[in-house]
């Protein structure tokens, strides 16, 4: 099999002097480095992170809310010692907020200043002048591309932007460059790691998906969730962590409107530690269930199913 190193190829295309070294040696190293940053990955997460680095491709991370999608990008940034640049997406996000914007106030000032000085100034010189990088406001995407130090770019909740806005990202995701009509093309000065997260409230376009590696982060199994609790909640006993993880698993098996997320599990664990509990009895569970469940109907259902006493205690 002819093996062109994707990193090498991309570096050539970007015209980098040398190929940036790979960030991870192997999958085990990913797992270890993430663990050092308090992020417990599993095999799938670590493999995809490893591949993203090796293939120099962005990762699209999908899954229910609160399962650690954003945290993954943060942990990776910490693990490789890179700056995290975050673009929070929302409906109505446009080019001027995501990519770059001309600082027209400053341009106006420049024009007015020129006018008062001397009217002989050549217009074309002025035009060239006001469309220089000095007047460019970089937004997260351009910033990530033009950074010289290592960066991790996090494009958070990409499913919130409109389908048309997604197209803004395509050039960056596949070529690691941004074209600015007045300036030309800005190419990346290093190979940034890119993470996109989505809560799956709508289908993303094929074009976007094709350019990314895909990672689905679901709820962790009991063992991993226990370990997450232990690593993130100081002072918790293994037995309590295990019991919490088991209760949460049972809750997720119920047909609830909103299953408890990992972050809610952690909140619950912290609460129980603060209350000084060593194990969860029925009464404690009922009294603190509202930390895990945010709908009254869910609370009632969970109380009924788990404790079997119905609405009386809810």
């Amino acid at each position: 099999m002819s093996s062109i190193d994707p990193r090498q190829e991309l570096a050539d295309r970007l015209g980098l002097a040398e190929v940036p070294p790979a960030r991870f040696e192997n999958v085990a190293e990913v797992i270890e480095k993430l663990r050092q940053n308090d992020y417990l990955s599993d095999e799938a997460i670590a493999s995809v992170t490893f591949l993203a680095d090796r293939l120099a491709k962005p990762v699209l991370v999908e899954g229910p809310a609160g399962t650690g999608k954003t945290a993954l990008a943060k942990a990776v940034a910490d693990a490789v010692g890179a700056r995290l640049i975050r673009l929070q997406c929302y409906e109505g996000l446009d080019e001027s907020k995501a990519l770059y914007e001309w600082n027209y106030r400053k341009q106006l000032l420049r024009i007015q200043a020129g006018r008062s000085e001397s009217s002989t100034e050549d217009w074309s010189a002025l035009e060239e002048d006001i469309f220089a990088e000095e007047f460019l406001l970089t937004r997260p995407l351009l910033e990530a591309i033009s950074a010289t130090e290592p960066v991790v770019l996090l494009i958070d909740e990409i499913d919130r932007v409109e389908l048309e806005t997604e197209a803004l990202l395509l050039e960056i995701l596949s070529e690691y460059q941004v074209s600015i009509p007045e300036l030309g093309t800005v190419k990346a000065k290093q190979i940034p790691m890119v993470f996109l997260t989505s809560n799956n409230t709508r289908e993303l376009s094929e074009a976007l998906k094709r350019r990314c590696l895909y990672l689905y982060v679901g709820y962790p199994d009991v063992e991993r969730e226990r370990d997450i609790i232990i690593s993130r909640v100081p002072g918790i006993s293994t037995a309590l962590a295990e019991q919490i993880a088991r209760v949460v698993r049972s809750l997720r098996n119920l047909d609830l409107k909103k299953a408890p997320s990992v972050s809610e599990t952690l909140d619950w664990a912290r609460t129980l530690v603060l209350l000084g509990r060593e194990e969860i009895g029925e009464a404690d569970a009922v009294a603190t269930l509202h930390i895990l469940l945010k709908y009254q109907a869910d609370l009632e259902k969970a109380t009924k199913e788990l404790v079997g006493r119905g609405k009386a205690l809810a």
Partner: protein
Amino acid sequence: MRNLLGEFIVELRAAGLPVSMSEHVDAARALTAIDISDRDMVKACLAATLVKNGDHMPVFSTAFDVYFSNRHASGADLGEMDEESSNADETKGDDPNATGMRGSGRSRGMGGGGGSSMSAEELAEMLFKAMQSNDMNSMRSGAREAVDRYAGMEPGRPVGGTYYLYRTLRNLDLDTLMDRLIAAGTKAEADGLEERLVKDEAKAKVEALKAAIEAEIRERLVDDRGAEALGKSVRKPLPEDIDVMHANRDEMAQLERALKPLSRKLATRLARRRRKRRRGPIDLRSTVRRSLSTGGVPIDLRFKPPHPAKPEIVVIADISGSVASFARFTLHMVHAISSQFSKVRSFVFVDGLDEVTHLFEESDDPAEAVARINSEADVIAFDGHSDYGRALLVFHEKYASTINKRTAVLILGDARNNYHQAHAEVLADLKFRARNVYWLNPEPTSYWNSGDSVIREYAPYCDKVVECRSLRQLEAFVGDLA
């Protein structure tokens, strides 16, 4: 390897996954970057490059297990195994077939010995111990043993894996096993909560065992018939393509699960489309404020959000046995996106007709309301066979006055009228009053008008008669409606 990848991708496409050319290239490249003797790694790598939708993962996983079966794994470290003595040591402890299991690669605990030297009790005991101590490796060898013993697999016999699975499970008596697990896990002073946890734990373990057995059977079938043939027979449709009328229990559960996110996505999409479709009047305040930064010149106009009229929906659904599940799904979906309509009223019928709108209003979970329809709606007037003519008559008599030019009437059913009178003239009058009349028929078009189906008589008075057999078709239709 490259050939195998190509065949694998053909299989994925046949199963309905949209795998593009560039994804194929990515997968091939990704494989060069990793150690391909590590089966888990290969799987993760192919999943990341070929599958771009979480719902497609199970289909991918099944296909992967077939094409990259352990016995023919790409790595050279897996010696060719003897089919008969399938107890031969598996050098690689890790077997990701069983979902959710991540063996730690320890060597196998127990369970060696000759193929069928174990008695039924010993096998049950071994499985029990393995499951109790969470020992994945002995559980897998137990699964292997169970398949040896009970499945009675015959080479070349063209039956599906489910047949062997059923035979194995029937003989294993999983209920007893589960009871034992629960009994062993329960402490003396356990309260209700603890009991429930133990039960869920046991359930999860039994599911894991089932998965292990299924994987084992599948592997042997691959050996017997080759990946391509088996791929075809285990291929399952994606949830949105399942035929609602003929779904089995498993598929039904899948449909139920798929319905909620599907409705949510649909609602988001419709809300967005509505907001974008037209602009409202100019928002002067915002425009003036905005103009300050351009020296008072209103360069950038701001608009108020639009308030377009939303349609009213009346759903009239046949809930007799043959089409009940289809009616349930449609009602669920329409109500799940009810915020996109100004008003939704629902009626169900068999040979009598009853309004069920209040069920949906009382509960904020459409699934719950749908479940209550069966027990609470009064729909049987005579013999309990669908009578479309009567249902329409009753509807017309009681509710025709509520239908106006903003109302879209949605009729769900196969129009199999059991040779009753059709009363199509009633529908004609409804069409005259309503904005639109649509008929959703869950039968394939080729069955229409055969036997007692009288869709032909109603069709002239409908704006559209749509074949609607899968969630995909349903979603497309409901999306156009709003």
